């Protein structure tokens, strides 16, 4: 296995990334590893670094990155929103293109966690994408009214309401109305490519609420899946796995991290079964 740390330009941004190539050449494909936006010890996250080693043993190359403004990538970013992924998707696309070109390999798959899974789903439309494993993908977006209400909630008015039980009760119906969450278009949009690519959604059973898996999210998925053909449906899987939350992989005990890698790896390897 060889590791190549690089800086890749993406429009006005530049990102630190690590391309990992297996000893076996040429690789069967490239796996784009997309982290969430939390605390990451390694470039691209602990999960990405661990997976890159194991994927190399499977004859697969991979690339992991720090999004611009995080970790070792230059830039300053004041907030992260899973509904705003245009810039990070361009960064991910840029490092993927660099890896594919340098290693002269076309098919690719993706592993995304939380925020990173939204980027992964947005790249599934590429005809060379064989599949994506999404850990704790957020299914729902906060709508316009929801954003407004969050602004109020986090301000002084919100503090007053939180501190007063009577006000809390009186405003409960309005809170439900303004909770305003809707299915993210990129999530259901990716289902349109199940004729060719596979999608696997994984959530951690422990702290499932932290993995963004709610009753409402489940209904959204059920509704999207209902419109699929039997063949397309066979290419989509949703699993609840023990442990978690998957959104904070870096903080899980090493043994549990290893178990998750063991679960993810066979899915990714299977995406390349016809390419090797």
């Amino acid at each position, binding site marked *: 296995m*060889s*590791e*190549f*740390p*690089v*800086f*890749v*330009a993406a429009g006005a941004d*530049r990102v*630190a990334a690590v*391309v990992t*190539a297996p000893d076996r*050449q040429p690789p069967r494909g490239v796996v784009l590893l997309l982290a969430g*936006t*939390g*605390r*990451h*010890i*390694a*470039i691209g996250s*602990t999960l990405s*670094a*661990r997976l890159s080693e194991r994927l190399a043993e499977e004859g697969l190359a991979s690339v992991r990155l720090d999004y611009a*403004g*995080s*970790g*070792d990538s*230059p830039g*300053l*970013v*004041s*907030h*992260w*929103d*899973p*509904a705003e992924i245009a810039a990070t998707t361009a960064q991910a696309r840029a490092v993927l293109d*660099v890896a594919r*070109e*340098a*290693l*002269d390999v076309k098919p690719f798959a993706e592993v995304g966690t939380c925020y990173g899974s939204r980027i992964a789903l947005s790249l599934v439309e590429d005809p060379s994408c064989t599949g994506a494993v999404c850990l704790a993908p*957020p299914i729902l*977006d*906060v709508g316009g009214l*929801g954003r407004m209400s*969050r602004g109020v*909630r*986090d301000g002084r008015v919100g503090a007053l309401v939180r501190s007063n039980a009577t006000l809390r009760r009186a405003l409960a119906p309005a809170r439900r109305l303004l909770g305003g969450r809707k299915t993210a278009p990129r999530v259901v949009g990716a289902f349109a490519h199940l004729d060719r690519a596979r999608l696997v959604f994984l959530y951690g059973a*422990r*702290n499932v609420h932290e993995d*963004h898996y709610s009753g409402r999210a489940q209904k959204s998925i059920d509704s999207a899946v209902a419109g699929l053909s039997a063949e397309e449906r066979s290419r989509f899987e949703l699993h609840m796995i023990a442990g978690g*939350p998957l959104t904070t*992989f*870096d*903080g*899980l*005990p*090493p*043994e549990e*991290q290893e178990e998750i890698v063991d679960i993810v790896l066979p899915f990714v390897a299977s995406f390349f079964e016809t390419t090797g």
Partner: protein
Amino acid sequence: MSSSRHTLGALRRYEDPEGGFFEEFAERRLGPGRAFALIAGPLREARPRAWAICPTVGPEQGNLRRLEALVARRLAGSGFDVARIRPDVGTQHAQISLPTRLAELEEAVDLLRGRGAREVGLAGVLFGGTVAALVAERLEVSGLALVEPVVRGRQYARELLRREAVARLMGDEEADGDGPKSELASAGRVPIRGLQLTQEAYEAIADVDLIKELRAFAGSSLLLGVSPAGEPGPALGKLRDRLAELGGDVTVAGIADPLYAPLGEYYYREAGLLRYDTRLDLDQKLAEAVAAWALDRAAASAAA
């Protein structure tokens, strides 16, 4: 493979003409865990003193990477070559290990000297600052820039266990508040937010007492404290006294920040799926303070 090596090798470095610096992944990897070494430097001729930035040993290192990168870029833009250590997550780095970090920092100093640095200063945040001070005793270095360094290792080691206990309780995990401490005692190891802490590693950290271990370093040093009032804490005062006693030129400064979360802790304010960075302003202030002090010392040294 040779052509891909060539293509990817060309992308190890980028230049930022506006900031007046470059960044480059060194070919050499550092320490037993083969950490990446990231070099930042000026686009003009470098000053004689270079800097090595040492990450801390615990899980908080993930929350300090951006700060270390900002410090490196500010120093590089001010004319200094800078090496920063980027642990990867091979077997060595799944563990909290003081010897590993010491070896990496020593090799980073060697890397800078190999690139032509005549003097090397060391920088670090929290326990990274502690490691820097320990290496300053082992190697001939000329400066120390420490942000909230841990003076007593025992306090830091206990804090690692306490934070793990709190995280378990908050994560609805089946654990009592004393869990990690008794787990370490009974099993000889305990996971601390994804990193393995062994009894041996715990003792190595707990044995550190900078006031006792600093015996010879007499170079210039900057001690930066962060608090809502902008006042450096009492531990920094003790360290200042010790460094001055050894004949060093010590600058102590405080930076005021409301500290949404303690330095080294997860610093995003979460609003549903949105995450707001509460550390941007402080990280930039710290980077600016370190670079300004390094420039001031360089000017004083040139004048002398």
